């Protein structure tokens, strides 16, 4: 255990957005895995992905629980000035849901089946029959997110076009359930627990999941600036080892996931938004939230192919192209493999 040099920093501040997939940093902190590495970590809840992004870029946060496409968008200078980023390990796979309001799901007869295209086609048929009605407003969490691209993918399956058939906006996860209840939005694609919460409160209905659309897709990553990694290499290794320990601990005993859910329910993290969950469902269909498994957290540029395709498409519309070297550097497994071979 002492083969890695002492961490250069003994105190760290990591940002997160309240979602079930921030579980690994929470377990690593509450379960003492960061402490075992000699690092005291403060987890700071952020109100918006843009705020989390700017604080990491400016060094106000050492790193953060990030949307998998965010480090790439930052490195490419999409949405803000370029900032070289690395995603040295994943924090979760799967976990997003597409939810329609009760009213829209009923009207369109859209329901969850094994085939995510079925509900998309149902909504598409309904919208074409009722095209004179107001366009439904659908929310995702951030322009450069799997949620945005998965929602686009699902809409494509139903031949539904944003701007023509539906309006798409971004909204932070903790707001979507209330916004659906008050009729501000008619659907959303967001990570857990917000989809199951909408269903538990009788506000919306799950009609597809990201695990169906892109099985085992990388959802969240640890995001750090490249200059931070240069300055604090041992700290990064120790942070990653603590997160891996947290993942192994979760997998080692079913009782541990209940303990993790208790920690997540603490007010600084997810608070009451998880009170509808009887247990922390890991790898259960249809959502298949995954936080543990052999090489599950290993980053890999080829696993980002879906995201790369959408980002390239977006950049082409602005006369640019996705630079594949940046993609490869951002999601390079070099730090992960180095740790695994220790």
């Amino acid at each position, binding site marked *: 255990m002492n083969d890695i040099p002492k961490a250069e920093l003994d105190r760290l501040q990591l940002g997160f957005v309240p979602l079930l997939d921030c579980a690994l940093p929470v377990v690593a902190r509450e379960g003492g895995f960061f402490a075992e590495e000699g690092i005291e970590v403060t987890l700071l809840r952020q*109100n918006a992905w*843009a*705020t989390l992004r700017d604080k990491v870029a*400016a060094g106000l946060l050492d790193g953060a629980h990030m949307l998998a496409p965010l480090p790439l968008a930052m490195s490419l200078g999409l949405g803000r000035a370029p900032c070289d980023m690395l995603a040295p390990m994943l924090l979760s796979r799967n976990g997003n849901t597409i939810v329609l309001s009760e009213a829209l799901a009923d009207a369109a007869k859209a329901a969850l089946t094994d085939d995510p295209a079925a509900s998309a086609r149902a909504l598409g048929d309904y919208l074409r029959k009722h095209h004179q009605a107001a366009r439904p*407003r659908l929310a995702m969490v951030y322009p450069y997110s799997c949620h945005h691209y998965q929602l686009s993918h699902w809409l494509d399956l139903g031949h539904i076009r944003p701007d023509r058939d539906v309006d798409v*906006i*971004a*909204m932070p996860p903790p*707001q979507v359930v209330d916004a659906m209840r008050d009729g501000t939005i008619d659907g959303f694609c967001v990570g857990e627990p917000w989809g199951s919460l909408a269903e538990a409160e009788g506000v919306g209905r799950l009609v597809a999941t990201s695990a169906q659309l892109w099985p085992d897709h990388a959802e969240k990553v640890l995001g750090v600036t490249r200059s931070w990694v240069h300055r604090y290499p041992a700290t990064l290794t120790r942070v990653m080892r603590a997160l891996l320990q947290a993942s192994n601990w979760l997998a080692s005993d079913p009782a541990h996931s209940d303990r993790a859910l208790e920690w997540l329910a603490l007010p600084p993290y997810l608070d009451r938004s998880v009170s509808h969950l009887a247990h922390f469902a890991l790898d259960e269909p249809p959502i298949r939230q995954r936080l543990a498994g052999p090489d599950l957290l290993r980053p890999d540029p080829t696993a980002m192919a879906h995201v790369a395709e959408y980002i390239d498409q*977006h950049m082409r519309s602005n006369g640019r192209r996705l630079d594949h070297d940046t993609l490869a550097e951002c999601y390079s497994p070099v730090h992960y493999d180095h740790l695994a071979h220790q």
Partner: protein
Amino acid sequence: MPAASALKVLLVDDEVVRAAMVEEALASEGHQVICHLTSPASLNDMVRRHQPDVVIIDMESPDRDTLESMSQLNRENPKPVVFFADEHDPDTMQAALKAGVSAYVVDGLVQSRVKTIIDVAITRFEAFQSMRQELDKARNQLAERKRIERAKGLLMKHQGCDEEEAYRMLRKIAMDRGQRIAQVANSVIDILEGLEKGS
């Protein structure tokens, strides 16, 4: 200030006093300011309706993600909004970040015109911050004074002494222990109130 340099500014801030301070300062320089409390759905409509040149928004506002998605998603919006990040002026960026100001501007707007607006916002956000710190300090002092009064009252009752004597006791304990009088007052209250409850 000539009318030609006047810009339309949308201010998104839930701190109404701070928003009023920024609005006043910008209006006095001839800019047209629209104020808005945060709410993602109506923000969309506000931007579409008013077509602001600049949006000044509290850095911690959850509406930032909504705002950033608009330039990418709403092709019908003729004025794409971009995050103001002036790489040539890291000092302004740092100052904005520290003050909690985020700014979005219409793509193509001359940066020097925007910079004065951002500087005004930063100054007012900072002024508000120190105002609030002063207020918090005053509130704490008031609360401390009340605790000291309470401790004096308890001592007078338990020791059968007068107010002056009670205060001297508090001060002596504080000097002996190297603590502040307010801290001593808190422990005196804990102990004596505990006795009262126990009896």
